[in-house]
């Protein structure tokens, strides 16, 4: 156990690609956590998806042992946090477990929208924030301009900002010295009854459920009987340790320290993130404040390609939900897709990540329906219905009015793209709140219907600004809107999985875009296919996919039989991934792409 004065707990806040994970790698290397041969990029990102996409999804911790220039030894606990808006909940958990933050800003790019949101969160948690300008070795770096921008936009004092290159290792020691000198040590009482925050938990095939904790008061020891205050479960601790980043057993954690425990828990549902651990013998009187539960804002249906996988999908969703408190699901039936689940997510990236994890980690083939937000349908009888699924839309005659969720969005971008972005926001029914400049960068604050954002807003924003705009949002209440259910018909048969709720003014544009897209995605078949978008009985857009004209092997002789038969078998196998609508088969890719709607 280290005395409080020699502990510093901190997280790193940064926009995607600004170098957070590289800095973490460098700090670990400098403090001797890993031998050079063990270093690989992004050592804290353990999921394949994280490494591939270069993002952090789950929070991770690592303990660093650092001897400061003063000669004294410090225990530094780093919590690596996700940067994307969809994972704001994970960020808030990490921040709650720390006293300070390092704000990493790319010295050539400047402040981005996500940085802003996370810094404000850190300030809300009373964090001391150390500004760090990264990538100062790049020719395009403009540290002075970015320093000024941080002062103007965020309002942070940058006179002590540290200029580094995480890539080359320049000034890494200055970062460590700043952590020791400028971040406050944690507070806590080692003699008081145990109070530890359950920051995260996950299932490990070898260890059972592993719990990530931050001790506030008291001591957490092996063989101690602990109680989880919210669930009431009691367990005996069998391992106590820290990540350095390799798991290392310490037998004990004291106030201010972070680490992991195992307690013979097999069922992860016993470990509720945000819960307080205390000791059975000496119960704490008050639990820690815990976390604000996150509310899913985007919903979609997930259906197994192979109907036999339904139960397996249920189990897999269950496992993911336990590790991800922000994810919800319930069973759903679709005429087109069979049995599946209606799932709630924090945003589109969250949706994509869950879908990918299901396919990868659980080896499931999925069909994903178009995403929808949560509408409040006010019925004529005065009741209110929360609508997660366009298919559940009540009969229009019973509807008095419909409310939809709005967001407050912050967009930061180089001013040369301002015109295009303003136009996009207007197209999407946005209302401007603020337009300010910091140097050549503009900051826009808009109110927008979330419905317009889940559609393809982010992709469009990226393409208009050539990737330079950054975007962040939070939910900002409900407002009445002229909303209608738009159905997609294939050869006059409604494909329930493709129906969406749209604003009347947007319906024609959306309907046309969807029909055009489906025309591209549905391969020509033996029969002609009509794709229509309709509101009520009225067709608002139509495309025709002409019938296949030629599709035959030129040659098939004795020596070709086996090979061609295998090709045919493969083709028939592929048809299992298609859904039949009358004479028409729609490939799964059409559903996924209809969801994304890409570039127009």
């Amino acid at each position: 156990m280290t005395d409080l004065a020699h502990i510093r707990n901190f997280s790193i806040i940064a926009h995607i690609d600004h170098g957070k994970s590289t800095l973490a790698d460098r700090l670990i290397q400098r403090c001797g956590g890993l031998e050079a041969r063990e270093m690989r990029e992004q050592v804290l990102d353990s999921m394949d998806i994280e490494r591939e996409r270069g993002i952090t999804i789950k929070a991770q911790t690592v303990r660093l042992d650092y001897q400061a220039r003063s000669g004294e030894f410090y225990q530094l606990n780093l919590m690596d946090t996700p940067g994307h808006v969809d994972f704001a909940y994970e960020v808030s958990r990490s921040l709650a477990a720390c006293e300070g933050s390092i704000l990493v800003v790319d010295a050539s790019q400047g402040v981005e929208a996500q940085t802003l949101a996370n810094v404000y969160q850190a300030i809300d948690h009373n964090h001391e924030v150390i500004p760090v300008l990264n990538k100062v070795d790049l020719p395009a770096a403009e540290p002075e301009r970015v320093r000024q921008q941080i002062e103007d936009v965020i309002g942070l004092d940058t006179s002590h900002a540290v200029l580094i290159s995480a890539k080359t290792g320049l000034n890494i020691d200055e970062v460590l010295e700043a952590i020791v000198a400028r971040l406050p040590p944690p507070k806590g009482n080692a003699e008081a009854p145990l109070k530890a925050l359950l920051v995260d938990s996950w299932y490990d095939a070898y260890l059972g459920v592993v719990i990530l904790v931050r001790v506030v008061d008291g001591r957490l020891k092996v063989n101690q009987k602990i109680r989880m205050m919210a669930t009431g479960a009691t367990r005996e601790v069998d391992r106590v340790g820290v990540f350095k980043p390799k798991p290392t057993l310490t037998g004990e954690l004291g106030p201010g320290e972070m680490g992991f425990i195992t307690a013979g828990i097999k069922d992860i549902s016993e470990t509720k993130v945000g819960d307080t651990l205390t000791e059975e013998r000496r119960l704490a009187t008050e639990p820690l404040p815990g976390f604000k539960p996150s509310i899913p804002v985007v919903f979609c249906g997930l259906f197994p390609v192979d109907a036999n996988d339904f139960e397996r999908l249920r189990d897999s969703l269950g496992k993911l939900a336990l590790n991800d408190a922000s994810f919800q699901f319930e069973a759903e039936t679709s005429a087109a897709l069979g049995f599946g689940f209606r799932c709630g997510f924090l945003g589109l990236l969250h949706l994509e990540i869950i879908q990918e994890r299901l396919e990868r980690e659980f080896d499931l083939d999925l069909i994903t329906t178009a995403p929808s937000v949560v509408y409040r349908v006010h019925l004529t009888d005065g009741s209110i219905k929360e609508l997660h699924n366009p298919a559940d839309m009540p009969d229009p005659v019973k509807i008095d009015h419909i409310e939809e969720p709005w967001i407050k969005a912050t967009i930061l971008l180089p001013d040369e793209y301002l015109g295009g972005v303003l136009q996009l926001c207007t197209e999407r029914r946005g209302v401007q709140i603020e337009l300010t400049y910091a140097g050549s960068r503009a900051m826009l604050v808009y109110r927008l219907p979330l419905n317009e954002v889940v559609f393809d807003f982010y992709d469009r924003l990226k393409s208009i600004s050539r990737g330079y705009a950054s975007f962040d949002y939070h939910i900002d209440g409900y407002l009445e809107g002229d909303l209608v259910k738009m159905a997609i018909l294939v050869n006059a048969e409604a494909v329930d999985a493709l129906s969406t709720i749209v604003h009347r003014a947007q319906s024609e544009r959306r309907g046309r875009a969807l029909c055009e897209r489906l025309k591209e995605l549905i391969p020509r078949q033996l029969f002609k296919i009509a794709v229509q978008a309709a509101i009520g009985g009225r067709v608002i857009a139509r495309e025709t996919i002409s019938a296949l004209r030629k599709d035959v092997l030129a040659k098939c002789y004795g020596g070709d039989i086996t090979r061609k038969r295998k090709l045919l078998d493969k083709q028939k196998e592929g048809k299992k991934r298609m859904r039949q609508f009358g004479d028409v088969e729609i490939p799964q890719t059409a559903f996924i792409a209809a969801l994304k709607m890409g570039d127009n």
Partner: protein
Amino acid sequence: MLQLSATEPGFGIYIHWPFCLSKCPYCDFNSHVREAIDQDRWRDGLLAELDPYAALTSGRTVTSVFFGGGTPSLMPPRTVAAVIERIAARWTLAPDAEITLEANPTSSEAARFQGFRTAGVNRLSLGVQALDDRALGFLGRGHSRAEALGAIALAARSFPRFSFDLIYARPGQDHDTWRRELAEALALGAGHLSLYQLTIEPGTQFHTRFGRGDFSLPEQDAAATLYETTQETLDTAGLPAYEISNHARPGQECRHNLTYWRYGDFLGIGPGAHGRLTLNGVKWATRAHRAPEIWLERVEQAGCGTDPPEPLDPALCLEERLMMGLRLGEGVARARLRAETGHDVEALIEPAALGRLIAGGFLEVTPSHLRSTPAGRQRLNAVLAALVLRPDVVGPNRLATNPRFEDSSGCDS
């Protein structure tokens, strides 16, 4: 003149000669270029591989022999003669058996035509591919238009029957130029023409070049128009399509290939050759080793170059039979289907799927046949994929293994 005997599938022997002077950029067949070939060893190899098959099928009558490749016109005529003699010695060779040899129309190969005829070949199939020197250059062929015309004339004089191949839907080829080329081809007097759309096969030089964007090919609709033009022109000329890419005057159909499409039995001799053989009610798929030298060593050591034969489930047989039979204008004979599966078409194919294809004008069921319409043949891949078979009706394999085959093949290591 040779007469096509009723609608019996026949029993054919395919002989593969794996060597070419150069590899054509579109060709994905098992062909190899070699500096020197030990002709005696290769002759003995082919002869040796016939024997174990003869032991299995000695009572049967061979209705056709087909020398394919590679380039079998590079074979010494004495080797061709020796193979035909061996077949006649081991089996009953039907008196009207069709014996085809594929030939390239270069002048040096034309010089051997008489030798092939003397050896017993009675049908020549010429790989002309185009009647235009620029197109021949693009296709990487070793002959000129003039040589092709000379070889065609010589074949017409030397053989009772002959055919030649053309490839269409070449880059830049439009409707009119193809029509003119077809008209010229028809004037050359062949009773049989094979007209193939150029397709890009994986592993070929064209595959790389096409992928790189060196040339482009007609899109689906343009290719369909070329195909339809081909059908109309050949119908009018009296050589209707009896198979998707094969056209003949009545009676001039290639009997050997009909055996494939009617899903009859055939032996595959030589490197990479495939066979289908029914023994005690079980259909076996055979395949010889693809690499020429390994095949030859195996034949010399073990008497045959075939990999372990694979018994085909009745469901697979049904799939293959339909895949092949629906390529033919005549279709699949219902009586034979019934005889071999114990069921009628309607029981073997999911009725809803069959109904949709019939209503769409892609298939026809007559009292005697299940067949594809011209529209169905033009889209046969999609038709086959839409045909939902009912393997539950076909039932499991009657014999999981067939000791007789394995005992006598003797080289399934």
